[in-house]
């Protein structure tokens, strides 16, 4: 039912945790809702050059949601903000071989990236 890659991320999620939200170089994106069964919180730490140096996540949701957010933390690292914005839900769904009923998890992960970058940009004015 779940692909090996989903299982791998689920069993060994990457970059679990949190940064201090208050810090200037941290962007936090929280998407989803408890009533819908999934909430993702993605955080990025951005260097002065505009490169994502590090990322953290926590997710309440099904295995595919957890795997999607774990995968995204790996993908955004080392990318510029513009590059990170190029990550599309289709890429995530393909990488994890998500079945159609789970595609919304990848959509949520893409939204989380955008929300985290928006938050960071907002802080920077």
């Amino acid at each position, binding site marked *: 039912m*779940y692909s090996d890659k989903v299982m791998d991320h*689920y069993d060994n*999620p990457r970059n*679990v945790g*949190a940064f201090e939200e208050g810090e200037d170089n941290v962007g936090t994106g*929280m*998407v*989803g*809702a*408890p*009533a*819908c*069964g*999934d*909430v*993702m*919180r993605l955080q990025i730490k951005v260097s002065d050059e505009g490169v994502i140096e590090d990322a953290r996540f*926590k*997710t*309440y*949701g*099904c*295995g595919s*949601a*957890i795997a999607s957010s774990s995968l995204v933390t790996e993908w955004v690292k080392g990318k510029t903000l513009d590059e990170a914005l190029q990550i599309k839900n289709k890429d995530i769904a393909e990488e994890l071989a998500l079945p159609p*009923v789970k595609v*919304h998890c990848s*959509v*949520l992960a893409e*939204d989380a990236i955008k*929300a985290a970058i928006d938050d960071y940009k907002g802080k920077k004015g």
Partner: protein
Amino acid sequence: MSKPIYFDYSATTPVDPRVAEAMCSYLTLEDGRFGNAASRSHYFGWQAEKGVDEARANVAALIGADPKEIVWTSGATESDNLAIKGVAQFYAKKGKHIITAKTEHKAVLDTCRHLERDGYEVTYLEPEANGLIDLGKLEAAMREDTILVSIMHVNNEIGVIQDVAAIGALCRSKKILFHVDAAQSCGKTPIDVNAMQIDLLSMSAHKIYGPKGIGALYVRRKPRVRLEAQMHGGGHERGMRSGTLATHQIVGMGEAFRIAREEMASENERIRMLRDRLWNGIKDIEETYLNGDLERRVPHNLNVSFNYVEGESLMMSLAELAVSSGSACTSASLEPSYVLRALGRPDELAHSSLRFSIGRFTTEAEIDRAIELINGAVTKLRELSPLWDMYKAGIDLNSVQWTAH
């Protein structure tokens, strides 16, 4: 991977070895009992008919009915369809109003929805927070043109037992027919169709160690309940349900019901002990809630919400346990359980629920292993959960603006 530990006895049960043995003697040429019970001209037909008659007596005995009041069907879904549509169509001139509850099985709810499209009116009662139907509300919903009340005995998701005797008395006093979906209660809690004043009762074999593909409908003869048949044909089952009788399935159901009658009391005691052991092993996990009344409940069922942990990911963590989130029919969908929602549980608690159902072959060692795994999985997933963080930080989740999608 070795076979998981089975904690999903409410979805289906393994066939009892005694049942399998009885069934196998009604299948092949060697045993000589494979015949068509409707073949009235030869030995093979009579042998099959004899097996069917014995099974009918065993099924009737479990619910205090006369064998003539038992109609074989392909399962509880068909029984529910036959009872509700059959009564609705036969008594349409008397009235077109039906009362049921929001927590009924889909076989009842979908059938009622279908009748609504055909011009019937259905009242869906909201249960109390513990899952039970309030008699006052039921009485208030009754009208001049109400022809049928359909309330399940034991709920498939939360295991609560409705007071069907009180509902039966109320229906009888108002001259309204009373149908009970007993798929989850046969063999788990005593049933007496006369004492409980039940007019129609749906039964299933595969929930009580019989085979899949067979069920029955009890149809009261005194005072006589009439039905419009839903499956027409050779006139089997006194015209109420046509189709060649699946002899081996029927024999299996009869044997399963015989065993249930003889062993229910002692078995329930053992299962209650196991269920309590499981609940005691997990109830102290912070933010853990039992869904449905603990007292008015069959011992086989434990439905628990682990707040801030999502049910499907919890099931993944508990791959060594075969459990379900919601009922088997609907768990493939992403919707939270409609039963828990009808109880007024918030969606996030409904999303966080798991149903553990215990049965004849569950052992103490399996319970202990489950307790260990559940504690570990909940801890692991809460470490991953942003909601848990927020709860621990004292943030009221209801005050947060969520980006619903």
